[in-house]
């Protein structure tokens, strides 16, 4: 398991050119939105795409089945591969939160007007968890060309979908907010567990061909 997580980070390190290119692009988007409308949860969705890019190297030019054939020929259980994906995303989000905190503090002395009123960390975390709880199983469902669609578009559509749903007081976030913190935590854990179960179900007995 640890080897799989390290493998993911090593790939980022070895592909640092791509990594920094993506960092530049997403930072540019982030700052543009920051200057336009201040920091709010919508703005903070965009770094998710950056994490997505570096977590699943499923760009169009790559052969996903070929990559999985290599990984599953190594001493790796399929179950470990699935769980490692969740852990990698979790670790990268921690790094991302730190990265965002750093940026916001760096730009503070520059005198940019930042509106913090829209920021609700709990809301952001709920969005992230719910987004990934859907995206990761879909990644395991589509190992072919469909995966590229999920990779590129869903990280944008799903959080926006949740935001729209929230406007209509129908989102899971609303439920989480309504309930006490313990219930919220339980709901989040159940969602994660359910997502892992679906991913395991989709991938464990899958033919890699």
């Amino acid at each position, binding site marked *: 398991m640890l*080897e799989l997580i390290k493998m993911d980070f090593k790939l980022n390190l*070895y*592909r640092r050119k791509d990594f920094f290119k993506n960092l530049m692009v997403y930072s540019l988007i982030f700052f543009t939105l920051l200057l336009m409308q201040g920091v709010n949860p919508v703005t903070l969705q965009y770094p998710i795409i950056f994490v997505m890019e570096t977590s699943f190297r499923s760009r169009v030019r790559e052969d996903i089945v070929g990559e999985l054939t290599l990984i599953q020929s190594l001493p*790796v259980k399929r179950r470990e591969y699935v769980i490692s994906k969740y852990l990698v995303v979790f670790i990268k989000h921690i790094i991302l939160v730190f990265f965002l905190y750093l940026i916001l503090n760096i730009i503070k002395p520059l005198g940019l007007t930042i509106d913090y009123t829209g920021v609700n960390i709990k809301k952001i975390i709920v969005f992230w968890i719910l987004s990934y709880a859907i995206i990761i199983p879909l990644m395991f469902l589509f190992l072919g060309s469909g995966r590229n669609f999920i990779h590129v578009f869903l990280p944008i559509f799903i959080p926006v979908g949740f935001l729209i749903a929230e406007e209509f007081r129908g989102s899971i976030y609303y439920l989480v907010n309504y309930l006490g913190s313990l219930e919220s935590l339980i709901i989040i854990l159940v969602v994660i567990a359910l997502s892992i179960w679906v991913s395991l179900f989709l991938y464990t007995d899958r033919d890699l061909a």
Partner: protein
Amino acid sequence: MDYVLEVEGLSKKFDDFQLKDISFKLKPGYIMGFIGANGSGKTTTIKLIMNLLRRDAGKVKIFGKDNIGFEKEIKDRIGFVYDDLYFYDDLTIWEMKDIIAPFYSRWDDKVFNNYLDEFGLPGYKKIKDLSKGMKMKFSLSLALSHHADFIIMDEPTAGLDPIVRREVLDILYDIIQDENKSIFFSTHITTDLEKIADYITFIDKGRMVFSKALDEIYDNYKLIKGDRGLLEKLNREEFIGFRVHNIGFEALAGVEVVNSLGTTDEIVVEQPSLEDIMYFYTKGKKYAGTN
């Protein structure tokens, strides 16, 4: 452990192809060649052995253990080489090694570096800049650097020039000098196997044809040749396969059939190559050749 690999009644069905009831066994210290025409099911069988495909029926035991139940433990002792093995092309040889090595409990950097030297592979070179032969040598270096007891290879010599092919075969021959190591090697280049294999398993159209020692195959099959007139007098049904050409015929037959024909100047009996055996089994009795 009596066998390093035991495959019993292995079956897998796809929409357009079915692998049915494949069975064979390999003892430690031997090389088994796995032959069959393109599309006969060799890669499917190897993927089932490696648990990349899920079997519909049958058993696969490696080192005496079920290949699914003990997957991680088994794969730690397996070296694999595939014809179309995926690598991260934008990484260098050293970087790719750094990705793979930590997965194996017995990885040996010294052995890996020795292979790089022996094969003339520069560690700083990106994988996308390697030739087909160099990629195969790199793949082989990865497979052999964790003291694997069993090497599984799917068409390792396909597309290689004769010199690289020979180098690969020499390496394989060196490996089995250690009597605890075994190799399972699929190919349709049968001349490679005649040089190094101890056993041959032959499948055709997803079905088992035979799994025998190479010597036994040579003892059991003969190639007979004669003129067309003679063919009319013989029972064609007794042949495994035959081919008629302008001046005569050639047929593959079991040694009992050949012995029953007696000694006559009309028939020439020759030792068939593995390619002859594969050819006549695949074409069967329907093939009439040139009339």
